């Protein structure tokens, strides 16, 4: 039996300032090649969980292993294995697309030739090659989102974390990003994907996990087959309730 790519055990993250457990004893396993949809209402703990899984945030208790490596001790090794697409545009607007790819590619230890070859292939796939020499700040939001995504794929990571990669973009860009993610998944990568677009999760992911109040409250398997379960939105509302979460 294959070992999980991600193993989370009794994970707790307590914010000292508020005294709240943003993640509260969460367990999760993600097998190689899975495409997990990480869902939850605002403030449920998704971003905190992703931050811990990517080594940005220190857990208060519990353990996280990425391909067997303990994140508390081997963060730098894990950073070679993962790619991360943040919710905000994580690019240098003053740089061209190629310069952005070159900078982040160098940090991943890629040589110039590899960066050029893979970079141009990804730029072409994302429909950005004709504007590859322009400064990114002059681009549309959709183009920036696409570059934001392919920047995280340049070093061909085994595991990709995506924090709402399609937020606030046009339909065409969203469709292209969905296609790209499907391709990466088909090539064997493990993906962890947070989104408020439940229909996207249903269409792309193999499994959905729903988090609320820092706990895993539901899991929905076999999403693509669409059999054996209700609509994802109904399940989501059933386990998290209809109460609005954006009140202070």
């Amino acid at each position, binding site marked *: 039996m294959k070992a999980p790519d991600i193993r989370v055990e009794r994970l707790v993250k307590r914010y000292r300032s508020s005294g709240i457990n943003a993640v509260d004893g969460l367990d999760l396993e993600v097998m190689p090649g899975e495409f997990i949809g990480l869902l939850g209402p605002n403030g449920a703990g998704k971003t905190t969980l992703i931050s811990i899984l990517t080594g*940005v*945030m*220190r857990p208060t208790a519990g353990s996280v292993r990425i391909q067997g490596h303990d994140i508390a001790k081997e963060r730098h090794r894990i950073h070679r294995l993962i790619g991360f697409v943040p919710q905000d545009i994580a690019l*240098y607007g*003053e740089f061209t697309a190629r310069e952005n790819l070159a900078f982040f590619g160098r940090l991943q230890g890629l040589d110039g030739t590899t960066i050029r070859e893979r970079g141009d292939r990804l730029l072409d796939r994302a429909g950005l090659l004709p504007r590859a020499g322009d400064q990114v700040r002059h681009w549309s939001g959709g183009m920036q989102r696409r570059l934001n995504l392919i920047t995280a794929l340049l070093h061909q990571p085994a595991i990709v974390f995506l924090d709402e990669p399609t937020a606030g973009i046009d339909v065409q860009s969203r469709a292209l990003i969905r296609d790209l993610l499907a391709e990466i998944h088909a090539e064997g990568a493990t993906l962890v994907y947070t989104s408020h677009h439940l229909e996207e999760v249903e269409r792309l992911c193999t499994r959905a996990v729903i988090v609320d109040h820092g706990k895993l409250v539901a899991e929905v398997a076999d999403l693509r087959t669409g059999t054996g379960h209700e609509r994802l939105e109904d399940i989501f509302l059933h386990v998290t309730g209809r109460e609005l979460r954006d009140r202070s």
Partner: protein
Amino acid sequence: MIARIAAHIRKELLLLLRDRAGLALLFVMPVCLVVIMAVVQDAPFRDFSDRQVKVLFADHDGGVVGQRIREKLERSATFTIADGSGMDADGFRESIRRGEHQVGVIVPHNASAVFDARSTAALEGIFAPADSSTGPLDSANVQLVIDPAVKHALRQLAHASITAILAELASERLLEDMHASLEEMNGDSMPPLSIAEPFIGVRQEMAARELAGDRVAYDSTQHNVPAWTVFAMFFTVVLLGGNMVKERSSGRMLRLLTMPGGTAERITGRISAYLLVCVAQGVLLLLVGIWLLPLIGLPRLRTTGPDALLLLLLAAIVVALAATSFGVLVGAACRTQQQSAVLGSTFVVIMSAIGGIWVPLYVMPPAMQGVGRVSPLHWSLEAFNVPLLREGDLGELLPCLVPLLIFSAVCIAISVVAERSASYR
């Protein structure tokens, strides 16, 4: 690791190259500051060196005393003389008040007569005390009118110069009269009595060897070029700190934190990039001092040779390290770009004011001189002055560099701890 640091260096330099306002702040502003401050401070610096004091001279005497005072003033390299004899008293005074001349010298109408009478009385007191008159002698005063805007040192210079000239005139006259009396007593001609030079002379020299054959080592250029180079290097804090905060508050930092390489590599990359920028600033301002300032009539920046240039380069690198380390500290400590810009620039302006950048430390009150010595900008200026002014060697330069290196190490250590605790909390 080296490749990642190189990537960070390239990134910082590229960000700078794409920021026109930032480039102007780093390179155009210091050139303007050096030129403007060197021009503005040229006159005050010359007051202490080779500036000619403009004297309005009114000779109401018309005799030998007025004539000799004028001759001696003209022979001095310190004064340029304009004739004000034809002016009325109010016009003469008004001309000085308006600053057209710094000093007015009025020789009274009876100067030569009083001079003759006093000389004769002095001689009678020596050779024929019995015949000497006991009645009061007339008196006369050469009047000095001083521009109210000139410094105390200049007033003293004018007063001391006229007093010395009058004393010299009296000595010469006494010797001439004694010579005549002795010839009359002996009935024979005698060689003239004269003092070719003072019995005890005064010799002045710079503590350092004269630079390039010039008289004075310290002038407006020699102060302002290193001073504003130090200021410009430290002022990179505005850009460096701002870029750090901008990166941290954007998604870019989140991406960087999920990639290989840690805080130390990012900070090393930043410091290395801005170190290059600071050294480039130093070279540019050095060239401004050597080539541009002489074109607008200011003294040329003087350097003493290849050894001094090597020491200057070493000083520039260490000052640049201190400046960029401080920039990194501000960037790590501040939460917003506004905070970093205000905090960084205010600190640099205050530290430069008390550290002797605007005006040399030696013209400040003693208490301020003590305060100024805690400023890293003062240590930086001293580091530049060792090769530029004092002709010091490495042994003299090191005591200036050590505090800067300690300052840099403290800034970097705090920055790394602050960045790490903020990025993995």
